């Protein structure tokens, strides 16, 4: 009985394998994506004339100044961005159903601690604000998020917060906006999405600041390896592109290689082992993530070599691993609870209050000298720096004791 059906299955195996392999590759390329951005650097907005531009621009530049100060940088030029305050009166509305606003969250999904904290923080804030949450998880998959945005829009929420997994959702976001839904993006999408406001960390700032710190640490001379997350994912590629622009300014800085770590400590460690054999005298490592840095530190320690100066975002696992060591590093934070800012911005828009078209989150950056202020030994390795959550809330999420 079994055998009679196995043969045709075996006959079809080659074609199904090809489809399956392609599916796995797609899943693999998406599974740890934290958030998306556009390929052209374009941002959101059905933007009327730029209002209150001076104040908005000053606020934008202050994030660069603050980061430069925190890392002790002599040079860090902000990239040109037009940040405006927008008149949201056309979006002002009473709750469409009942007494409370219904806010949809097209989330990344709890595929890592960043996603989990992002969603839970959003729910906590919604409860505080008396808003009802409609939720859909993309599980890190850009394709699944296309359907999620459509499904959520069909429930006619008052507003929708989207954590983009890629540009594939642009048309669906535009359709939701055309339907009259206020869309706020927690990540960068092309302008054609017509999202009302974008609330995120700025990738250019992170990539450039890490590079400038490394250059300064090396006195403008030396060989540098670049470690990025996932090839083709904007969060990784934008940071790397900004860093390369900085390195190009310094002729004595030589970028000897760029490798991808998939934001994985295991892959980071494997890559670093290769770096040690190929570039035994590497002077510095530019990295976009502490997930990979954790593996890099292990590889150098196991090889009995001094860990070169390095960069990345901040995770508690990395801070614990380097606590008390003489390793030099510069980190910046990428707070997952920026979802709270997204929700607040959406509610401000619904109330007709002015908001910025681009709200670039200004969260702490620091070097090895101040790392002890950020390490949380009483908390899980998976803890990431949060802007808004209290210790009680972190304990509720079982991230701290």
């Amino acid at each position: 009985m079994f055998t009679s059906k196995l043969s045709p299955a075996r006959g079809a195996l080659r074609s199904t394998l090809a489809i399956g392999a392609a599916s796995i590759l797609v899943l693999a390329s998406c599974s740890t994506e934290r958030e998306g951005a556009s390929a052209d650097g374009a941002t959101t907005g059905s933007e009327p004339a730029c209002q209150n531009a001076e104040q908005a621009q000053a606020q934008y530049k202050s994030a660069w100044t603050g980061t430069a100060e925190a890392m002790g940088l002599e040079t860090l030029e902000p990239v040109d961005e037009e940040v405006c305050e927008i008149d949201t009166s056309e979006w002002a509305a009473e709750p469409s159903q009942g007494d409370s606003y219904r806010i949809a969250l097209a989330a990344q999904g709890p595929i890592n601690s960043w996603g989990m904290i992002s969603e839970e923080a959003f729910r906590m804030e919604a409860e505080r604000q008396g808003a009802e949450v409609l939720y859909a998880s993309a599980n890190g998959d850009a394709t699944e998020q296309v359907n999620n945005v459509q499904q959520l829009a069909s429930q006619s929420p008052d507003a929708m917060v989207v954590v983009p997994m890629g540009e594939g959702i642009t048309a669906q976001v535009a359709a939701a906006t055309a339907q009259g839904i206020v869309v706020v993006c927690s990540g960068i999408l092309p302008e054609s999405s017509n999202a009302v406001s974008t609330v995120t960390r700025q990738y250019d700032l992170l990539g450039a600041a890490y590079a400038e710190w490394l250059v300064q640490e090396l006195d403008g001379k030396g060989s540098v390896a670049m470690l990025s997350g996932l090839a083709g994912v904007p969060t990784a590629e934008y940071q790397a592109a900004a860093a390369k622009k900085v390195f190009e300014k310094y002729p004595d800085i030589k970028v000897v290689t760029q490798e991808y770590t998939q934001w994985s400590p295991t892959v980071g460690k494997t890559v670093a082992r290769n770096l040690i054999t190929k570039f035994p005298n590497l002077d510095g490592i530019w990295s976009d993530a502490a997930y990979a840095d954790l593996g890099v530190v292990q590889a150098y320690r196991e090889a009995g070599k001094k860990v070169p100066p390095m960069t990345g975002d901040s995770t508690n696992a990395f801070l614990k691993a380097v606590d008390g060591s003489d390793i030099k590093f510069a980190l910046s934070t990428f707070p997952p609870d920026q979802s709270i800012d997204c929700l607040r911005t959406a509610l401000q828009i619904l109330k007709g209050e002015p908001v910025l078209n681009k709200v670039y989150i200004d969260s702490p950056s620091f070097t090895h000298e101040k790392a002890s202020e950020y390490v949380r030994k009483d908390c899980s390795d998976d803890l990431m720096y949060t802007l808004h959550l209290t210790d009680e809330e972190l304990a509720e999420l079982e991230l701290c004791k």
Partner: protein
Amino acid sequence: MTQVRELFEGSAKTLAPLSGLLAVLILAAITTPNFFSLDVLRLVSFQIGIIGITALGQTFVLLIGGIDLSIAAVMVFTTIVLASYTDGQDGRLPVAILLAIGAGLVAGALNALLVLVRNVPPFVATFASFVLIQGIIVAWTRGAPSGSIPGALSWLGQGRILGLPVPTALFLVMAVAGWMVLAQSGLGRRIYATGLNPTAAHMSGIRTGWVISGCYIAAALSGVLAGLVSAGFIGYVDAAGSRNLDLNSIAAAVIGGVALSGGRGRIGQTVLGVVLLAVLLTWLIQLGAGAGGQLVVSGSVILLAVALQNGRFRLPSPIRTFSMKESS
């Protein structure tokens, strides 16, 4: 004449991956002069261990005409069980390992049940298991697994035996055991027979259901062992680190010459494929090839291997000899 032809065909088939390996080694020697340094060779041997453990499990499933896409999920699940149950305490490690083995047995049995009882194609069945296990992981941990990996496990991922990385030594022991099962035992002949023609095997008295179940369980247990090695290597629950594991395990076996259609292939070929893939991956990183270049070269090698499988040459498998002996 037929015997001479089969011998020639078999030699050509076996020589194909071997010549591929030699070609990569020569290219590596030319393009990366320090490739044969002790440090780089250690990297290659470590890669052999990590890829090889799961490739051996995959080989058993491929030989019965199946495929297992859930090995990487089992591996990640193992690391989560270890971290959650032990919370870094060495004393709790034995029970945690038993729990992980139990979970692996369940995953393997589930795959076998889906394939045998529900007649679900192996690709679909094991992909469903992959999704199911991932779902359990997300529901359980919500993306932030609690606990930590016990330090006692680090030897498994970072230690050495006679200069060899422990994962490589484990792989070699498993390869010898696998060779003994496939080439030296009746069970091996039953596996080949089931993969070549399950109907005939069933009619000749082979309990194909048990054979198939055993192969899926062996593959799942290779995932458990890979999980233990991975946890020991990095000391951290790293879901992202297993992303390419399923593809690499299949690729290694296929590059070596194990047939995707079942019934043809030997452990020696898988070992050869694992070595070739490990050398290739290490060389590409040493070469400084970008992510795109690495994928293109790896994909080309796999395509070449599959093309050779589907070409004029046919690999003589032990079952043919076995059948002739039986019939005579």
